[in-house]
């Protein structure tokens, strides 16, 4: 089953996935996901232009063209924003749609030429279009990007998290930002044949968002996002190669989305499930304190430290069935069931224990504080 073509495809998807995840981390942390979207859509006229200029399916001409038009798009966004005062989102949408339209026009010109049928794979990506000969240049470019990333690691870290500090330290911030954007553009362009212009940006965003849920440091995030990228890229390429005529891009993206969804759901601290559990814990602790306070208040109101409260009264007090809370508190030793006042009266009566009083008035040290107080931060 593992024929050479498939191995080529999987290797390419692995390289692209790792690179996209690593660089996507910076895109996401810098809040520039939509710029990535624009660069990848805007690569289309470059792809077709490269094809037209070289007169054939010359990979380096096509990718070079894509890089140029992607960079040009980024530049036009800047001109629109700084020069004409157009709002960021409108500038991004304008450039994206106009460049894409130019790509469509060029595509219709190119389709009159022989060999242009392969061009449409750049829309959604087709794994089979990656040839064995493309693999080595791909790996080399990827290594180049990674080594520049490592070389300027500290600088990139600083401009990502504290742009002002970088400026104060005298770093050439604008140049570094441009360099980072160029690295991202190279990554996008490299993945076009696999994932396509429409979906490539998702291969940068999704693994990075997923990784962010698990780790806190930049280095770990880059590494983990790279790993997630490898997983989704390789599995997506494999799956799409099995299906007949299934474009690779969508499958890779859906695999990446699956990883992201799982991460959003399951991550230990930020995950939705963990949050939900913390909230439940906090709610339970609050309920417990409410019951303890009610017991305490009732005994104060009756000026009787020995006062025992009727369970039905506590039900009414809380507005729901107090039974589960009461038995939990009893298990914790904070309250105890009291002897009935008279044999004919039904229903249990409760009173605070010493531990319960301390829990209510003393410093928060019980299990209630664990869930309650930590749950709310960011």
């Amino acid at each position, binding site marked *: 089953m593992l024929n050479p073509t498939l191995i080529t495809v999987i290797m390419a998807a692995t390289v692209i996935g790792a690179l996209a995840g690593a660089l996507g981390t910076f895109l996401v942390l810098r809040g520039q996901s*939509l710029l990535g979207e624009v660069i990848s859509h805007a690569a289309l006229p470059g792809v077709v232009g490269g094809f037209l200029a070289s007169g054939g399916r010359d990979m380096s001409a096509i990718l070079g063209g894509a890089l140029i038009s992607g960079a040009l798009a980024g530049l036009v966004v800047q001109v629109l924003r700084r020069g004409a005062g157009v709002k960021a989102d409108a*500038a991004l949408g304008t450039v994206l*749609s106009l460049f894409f339209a130019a790509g469509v026009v060029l595509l219709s010109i190119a389709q009159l030429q022989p060999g242009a049928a392969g061009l449409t794979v750049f829309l959604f990506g087709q794994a089979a279009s990656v040839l064995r000969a493309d693999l080595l240049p791909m790996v080399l470019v990827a290594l180049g990007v990674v080594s520049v990333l490592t070389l300027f690691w500290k600088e990139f870290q600083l401009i990502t998290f504290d742009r002002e500090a970088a400026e104060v330290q005298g770093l050439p911030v604008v140049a570094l930002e441009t360099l980072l954007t160029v690295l991202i553009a190279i990554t996008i362009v490299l993945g076009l044949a696999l994932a396509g212009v429409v*979906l490539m940006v998702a291969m940068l965003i999704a693994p990075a968002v997923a990784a962010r849920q698990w780790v806190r440091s930049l280095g770990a995030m880059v590494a983990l996002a790279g790993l997630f990228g490898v997983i989704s890229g390789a599995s997506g390429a494999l799956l799409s190669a099995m299906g007949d005529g299934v474009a690779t891009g969508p499958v890779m993206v859906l695999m990446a989305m699956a990883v992201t969804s799982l991460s959003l759901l399951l991550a230990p601290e930020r995950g939705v499930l963990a949050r939900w559990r913390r909230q439940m814990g906090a709610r339970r602790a609050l309920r417990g304190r409410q019951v303890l306070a009610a017991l305490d208040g009732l005994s104060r109101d009756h000026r009787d430290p020995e006062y025992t409260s009727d369970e039905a009264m506590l039900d009414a007090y809380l507005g729901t069935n107090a039974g589960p809370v009461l038995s939990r508190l009893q298990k914790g030793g904070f309250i105890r069931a009291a002897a009935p006042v008279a044999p004919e009266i039904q229903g249990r009566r409760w009173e605070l224990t010493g531990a319960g009083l301390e829990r209510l008035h003393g410093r928060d040290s019980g299990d209630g504080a664990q869930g309650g107080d930590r749950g709310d931060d960011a």
Partner: protein
Amino acid sequence: MMLESIDLMILGTGALVALSGAMLGTLLVLRGQAMSGDAISHAIVLGIVVAWMLTGARAGPIVVGGAALAGLVAVIGAQALSRSGLMGHDAAIGLVFPAMFALGVLLINLNARNLHLDIDTVLLGEIGFVWLHTVPVLGVELPVAGVTLAVVGAVNAVFLLMFWKEQKLAAFDPGLAAALGFRPQAMGMALLALTSATAVASFDAVGVVLFLAFLIVPAVTGRLIAGSVLGIMAIAVVSGVVSVGVGYGAAVRWDVSIGGSMALATGLGLALALALSPRSGVVAALIRARAIELEGLVATLLTHLAAHEGTEAQAEECTPEALVDHLGWSETRAGKVVLEALDRGVIHRAGAELELTEAGWALARAAAERIDRRLALTMAAKEAARDMAQDVARDTGRDTGRDTARGPHG
């Protein structure tokens, strides 16, 4: 019938796309939600495919409604994700719609045999073939896509007429709109729902990505030129509709993609506005910059003359040649500035010399006064800063004892 001509069908359909796009796009751009339009236009692909799988229909109210729902889901989903604080808003948009788009494309791929819908059509549209599917309306054969667009466009227009002031207020001051009970949230949702419906109605004609061009670019063009919502919208409509005509002409002339050419033509309007808009155009900015520069040069000339008039150096300094020799101006610049000053009547010629007129003296004195005042203020500020620095130094010296220990000046 006239309308049965293919050209008119294509142009009419395109114009309807441009009309609806401009109306909704203006509000989206003013609200800063242009990229929501991007998300919607991609996400409806999933809606279209799912509606097709469930009902077997490719057009009609159910598909429009169902797919529009998908667009709304994308925007609301992105909002919910970004509000959860797990990721930024941009990343949320960048996650939700590629996911829906990818799923839609995958479903198209898997159903390719029975679904008469290939991905290229979804993405790029086939406005050149709208005349293939027609319905009779009042005895005239009209393209289905055009009729759908006309209905959606009418709904858009009615909606805008009904909620014009609410939409306007919600776009500029959501806080005030909420305080006045105009429900800016609901207004925003309604706008996005209509955008979704319009995107669905347009996709047959121009495809999902090119629709975005008609949604955003004309509105941005209007924004560059006009200063009122109505003005922006009017310019957007005109620029969108003209783009359709120009784009179609170009497409026929050079035999290229009609939809792509129409969408690209919207960029021509934008380029024109960028160059020529009296508000924010490049040319206008250049003219303003030149005027400001000239103003400064004339002021310099006046100051120069005022400084030397009545002194011994007058004969040497108060000449056009001195401007070149002493101020380092080029001869053309000196000539231009002198001419300008003569035109304004602030200087006059006295033989080979230039002399200030009454008006020129008044201006020069006012400028000198301004400069003096600024100088005085600057000096005062410097002094205050020095005093403050001394105070701080004294205080730290007292607190730590370090400065006093070091020497007598502590």
